[in-house]
């Protein structure tokens, strides 16, 4: 289901953004058509590159797909579920990123080196936020895997409610940072010097570029699924759950589109501060959850 929603989210975001800026915007599935065109194109390779450059998109997509297997859909268990699987989730995504960074350095371009460096820095700062949040959820619910945590996540008291809202905020922000969107990176920018993710893939073309697009979309939908999952009630029948899940994924796309439309991009040097603020919020969530479990136990 995550994969299905991955196909439509990018279109929705673009559409929302277009509507917000007063344009009509491209068709909902335009990104898919673009990718289809890319798949039918030839490949241009730089003579500097090695095998690392050619294999990196595949590794990246494979890592994202493996991560998909770990994330439950609605209240249905994930295909692969084990204790502390969110650690595996984080690390397997890091593996994909490792290869993309290497691929950028492989071209020997100073622009791409710069992008790689920024991506490495931002992801290293945002990873602790994610694990901090999931560690907090593990502490709060007493369960240790994605499937269990999300199926036992409920708002038992006011503290948990506040922490839950902050958690949603964090997940959305993490999704934005991890997928190189505003305010950390702007996918629409046209100047190499100011890009992060886009500049890393400057030298990709044809099917390789299509693979990279696929993995970016799926990754984004993956984080959307994390947000949506905690809102789907567990008592409902499977079909209804699936429907609601898709609906939530769509609204996730719309929310992101809205957020991107009304937000300016950070100055490049402010980005680390921005991400460190997220760490602080994650610590706040932890504190609230900690207090709440000790208040309720009394």
């Amino acid at each position, binding site marked *: 289901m995550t994969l299905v929603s991955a196909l439509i989210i990018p279109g929705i975001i673009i559409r929302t953004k277009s509507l917000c800026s007063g344009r009509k915007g491209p068709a909902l599935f335009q990104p898919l058509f673009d990718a289809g065109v890319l798949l039918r194109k030839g490949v241009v390779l730089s003579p500097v590159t090695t095998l690392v450059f050619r294999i990196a998109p595949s590794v990246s997509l494979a890592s994202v797909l493996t991560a998909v297997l770990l994330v439950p859909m609605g209240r249905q268990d994930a295909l692969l579920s084990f204790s502390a699987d969110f650690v595996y989730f984080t690390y*397997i995504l890091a593996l994909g990123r490792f290869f993309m960074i290497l691929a950028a350095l492989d071209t020997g371009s100073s622009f791409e080196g710069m992008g790689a460096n920024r991506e490495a820095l931002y992801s290293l700062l945002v990873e602790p936020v994610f694990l901090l949040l999931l560690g907090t959820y593990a502490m709060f619910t007493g369960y240790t895997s994605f499937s269990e945590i999300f199926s036992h996540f409920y708002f038992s008291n006011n503290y948990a409610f506040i922490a839950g809202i902050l958690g949603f905020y964090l997940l959305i922000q993490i999704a934005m940072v991890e997928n190189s969107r505003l305010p950390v990176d702007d996918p629409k920018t046209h100047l190499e010097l100011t890009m992060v993710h886009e500049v890393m893939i400057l030298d990709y073309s044809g099917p390789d570029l299509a693979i990279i697009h696929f993995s970016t979309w799926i990754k984004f939908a993956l984080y959307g699924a994390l947000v949506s999952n905690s809102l789907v009630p567990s008592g409902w029948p499977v079909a209804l759950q699936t429907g609601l899940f898709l609906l939530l994924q769509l609204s996730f796309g719309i929310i992101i589109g809205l957020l991107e439309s009304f937000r300016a991009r950070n100055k490049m040097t402010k980005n680390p501060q921005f991400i460190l603020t997220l760490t602080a919020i994650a610590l706040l969530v932890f504190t609230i959850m900690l207090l709440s479990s000790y208040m309720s136990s009394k």
Partner: protein
Amino acid sequence: MSRFKTAYLCPRHTGITMEFLFIGFFILSSALILAVPAGRKHLISGIPLLVLLVISSWVAMPAVFSEESSRFLFRIPLTGMKTVVFSIDALSGFFILTVNFNALTTYLFAGTSLAGHLNHHRPIWISVHYLSFLLLHASMLLVCTQQSAFPFLLSWELMTLSSFLLVIFDHTSRTNLKTGINYLVQMHLSMFLLLMAFLVSGEKGSYGFDSLPAFFATHREFPLFLLFFAGFGIKAGMIPFHTWLPDAHPSAPSHVSGFMSGVMIKMGIYGIFRVISAVQHDFLTIGIFVLVISLATGIYGVLQAIVQHDLKKLLAYHSIENIGIIGTGIGLGSIGLATHNKDLALLGFAGGLLHVLNHSLFKSLLFFAAGNVCNATRTRIIDRMGGLAKKMPFTAFFFLLGSLSICGLPPFNGFISEYLLYLGMILNIHQAGFYGSIGLIMAILGLTLIGGLAVFCFTKAFGIAFLGTARSDACKLAVEPPPPSFTGLMLITAMIIAIGFAPVVFVKPLLSAVNATFIPVAPATLTPLLQNLGMISLSGGIFVLLVVGIFLLRRLFSAPRTKSVAPTWACGFHAPSARMQYTATSYADNVAGLSGALVSLNKEMKQISPGEIFPEPANFTSHPVEKLEEWLVNRPFTALRRLLRRIAFLQTGQIRHYILYPFLFLLLIFFLTLLNLL
């Protein structure tokens, strides 16, 4: 709980013959190493190494793989003296096997690593090198098997001296000699601390690890532990005792760096494990202390690694980081024991131990690959490399594999040990109590940060050194060493992949060993833990299939299309030079900026002044400064030297003055006794 199994390696009456056989064999093989020409020394030194390796592995196997806790004692009677006792339990057995595997791969790589040096040094020095290598291996085995204080310290000293000789192999360079001597001095400080610790803890007549439980049961435990920790910590490279490490590893030849970093510094870890297994009550203080120091070590190590320009120094700092991860495991394990969280105790200690093995694998792999690079390019500076993946594809592959596993990325071995640590923490965070939860979430934060920084550091090391285009002429001419030299590296690769994809096989005996050594009652949760590892194997398999599948699909799609070659996009600029590439220094710059006072760079630049008509070339250099070394080693010693210079007037050089001093001393004693002041 532990049963003693005594085995006489040989019956009593044949003792003398056995002893002579052993000693004779080693004297003979040493003589042979000295006698043969330089080119053959490598081959000959393999014989005693293999003999020792097979014997020690053979006796260590049952200790590690037996289900119940047991300790094997081997006695070798000596002529006219006491018997020598070798005691091997699961802990020593595990370390012995790790040391042996690493010794084997080091030996296999040593030939390549030394090939370039054979003509620079006299044959006797090559012999000394091989003999010290054999001695270092033997002394590490002794360290693992000796329980009483004095044989233990003797082996410890032997280990220091032999490794000192290995470090100063390239003795023509002044800096190498200096770092060697620095190493020697710091190791003797460690020796002195350990001696003190043993003397404090032992009863008259019996000093050693066996007398520790009795001492711990009746005294305050933390001070003695601190003494041991400082002693072993110097060897292991825990901060603030790590200062010898980043200097010694780059000075030594690469195979020695791999061996020292892979297993010799782990002897400090072995000691810490050994002492903790004797501790009786105060696990909480010790656990928290070790955890905090280790996390600090990990973060400090990796931050320093990021700003290094020198490839081998970067790897050396990563050893410090990994010692931090191992220590985190030890700390978590102790806290688990203190709070009766059996899962945490089990997984903490097991994760730490597995990381000992894992680090010995990927660190030696990285050092060997780095050694190939340094030999081929004649430089250790990352910013002068580049594009090596094309010239040295095999070396690049091994370095990449080492990088992936040192970053703890699945599906390789580094992930498994880090996962065990995470799992221990996450399973317990729910019932850890108020402060426990805070502590655990901080540990999770620290470990994640270390992991992220490691990814940053190794994308820099691999990306700048191996990818892109060559930044110096030496790089353009770099060639791969001949294929046979990769035997050792391939062995390590096989182990890395085996642990990564089939962790259950390795973790299961490890868990039962940890159960036996540290945890009084066997926890019932072993099966779900192993199921988790099974799932990880499964995900790893799926991941690899996906990579292969997608890559083949990509082939399929791009095969019928046009393939063209065009230069890298540089905004339309078509004559980019190698110097325009991103450098390691600028890659590291933003993290260095963020980490504030922890990392400092000495920057020197010469700018062109505005009014200059004929400007000279401008330049810019930066050197990472080790602040802790500056504050904890350099400044105190400078102060000490200044103080000592003041009383140097006593050293007149005239013999009558020197005779006068003892006389004055005797007079002083005499009067003090007379006045009843003594």
